[in-house]
């Protein structure tokens, strides 16, 4: 049911190696190029943020674990370019573009970069009134699965699925990734910050009392719990 990217709480990854504060932003030039290429190709408008996240999640578990961060971006970008019809598999295999694309009028030009990067892509929308209020107890959907598409995109991590938490903030309505990642529309839904006791998630003996984990969760992930 789960995918390999959903790794919160997993054991076995070893220790964290902090980088120096002044380490280069990109360890290698190709990484910078991979990031820029991904952002520029996204500007063609053939997919949205949720589709691109899902493309990375759809890498095989073997590739997801083996590839470095920007290699995952590149692999997902190549997959998307073909799946969304921007390039053909043949063009990709031959490293040869067959003629100018009809999408070329949308190409991100140098002069537009500052405005595109600084305008971003806000996801707040008009949507349904919130069902929950601050302080409400809620339980999270179990299993943490997309209800529209088997194996589809969702932003409810497995470790927080089937758990009880408390609403601590309401962020308005945001685009719902579970539908937006699958061309099913933005389907805006109320979104909340939900606090979970770390002891509930990981077991009492494993955490210090009072520690919490907080996640931003859309209303369809949540059910009311009677006190």
């Amino acid at each position, binding site marked *: 049911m789960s995918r390999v990217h959903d790794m919160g709480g*997993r054991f076995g990854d070893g220790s964290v190696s902090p980088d120096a504060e002044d380490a280069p932003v990109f360890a290698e030039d190709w990484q910078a190029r991979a*990031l820029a290429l991904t952002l520029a190709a996204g500007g063609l408008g053939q997919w949205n943020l949720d589709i691109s996240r899902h493309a990375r999640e759809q890498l095989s578990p073997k590739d997801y674990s083996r590839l470095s961060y920007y290699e995952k971006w590149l692999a997902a970008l190549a997959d998307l370019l073909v799946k969304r019809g921007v390039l053909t598999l043949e063009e990709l295999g031959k490293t040869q573009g067959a003629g100018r694309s009809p999408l070329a009028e949308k190409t991100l030009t140098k002069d537009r970069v500052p405005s595109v990067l600084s305008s971003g892509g806000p996801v707040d929308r008009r949507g349904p009134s919130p069902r929950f209020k601050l302080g409400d107890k809620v339980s999270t959907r179990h299993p943490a699965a997309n209800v529209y598409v088997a194996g589809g995109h969702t932003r409810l991590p497995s470790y927080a699925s089937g758990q009880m938490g408390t609403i601590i903030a309401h962020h308005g309505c945001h685009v719902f990734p579970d539908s937006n990642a699958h061309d099913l529309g933005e389907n805006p839904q109320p979104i909340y910050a939900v606090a979970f006791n770390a002891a509930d998630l990981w077991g009492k003996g494993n955490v210090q009392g009072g520690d919490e984990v907080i996640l931003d969760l859309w209303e369809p992930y949540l059910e009311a719990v009677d006190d």
Partner: protein
Amino acid sequence: MPHDHDHPHTVLPPEPALRVKALETILTQKGLIDPAALDEIIDTYQNKIGPKNGARVVAKAWSDPTFLQALRDDATAAVSELGYYGRQGEHIKVVENTPDIHNMVVCTLCSCYPWPLLGIPPAWYKSDAYRSRAVREPRAVLAEFGVTLSADQSVRVWDSTAEMRYLVLPMRPAGTEDLSEEALAELVTRDSMVGTGLPKKP
């Protein structure tokens, strides 16, 4: 190599620098990429947008109670006034460390991070080890950054599962009462704004 139809990327050369080159070449031939635009994007994130932005926000919050209140009310609007808005920072929330609570930010599902305030995330933030462990054993992870919390401080770990982007507002170090906003900003480290570090002492 047989083609994997779910994964067209497998037809590209395996070496990452060659993969990037191949994709850039094809897309440029098709008129879909302006290589000068790529240079401009790289320059933006390499040289223009980085943790200095967030440090300015923190130093201002430490020095200016009106700004601190504006951050609490609507952080997105407050940091936008300083010119910090954009991609991966459309919805900002600032979480304040106190003597009772230490905040720490992670994205277990990918690598969500407040780009306009902190720039591109460092490698450790994107690592499997940080993503898997920060939610389960934040204190052990903090120890790997050389941070030990007091026993009566609770940890709040914020898992960035949506488009809200979190900036930790660390506590102002003691002995900084006379420092200017500019001098305070020098004490604010990137890690202190993710919650894996503390500000430098004056």
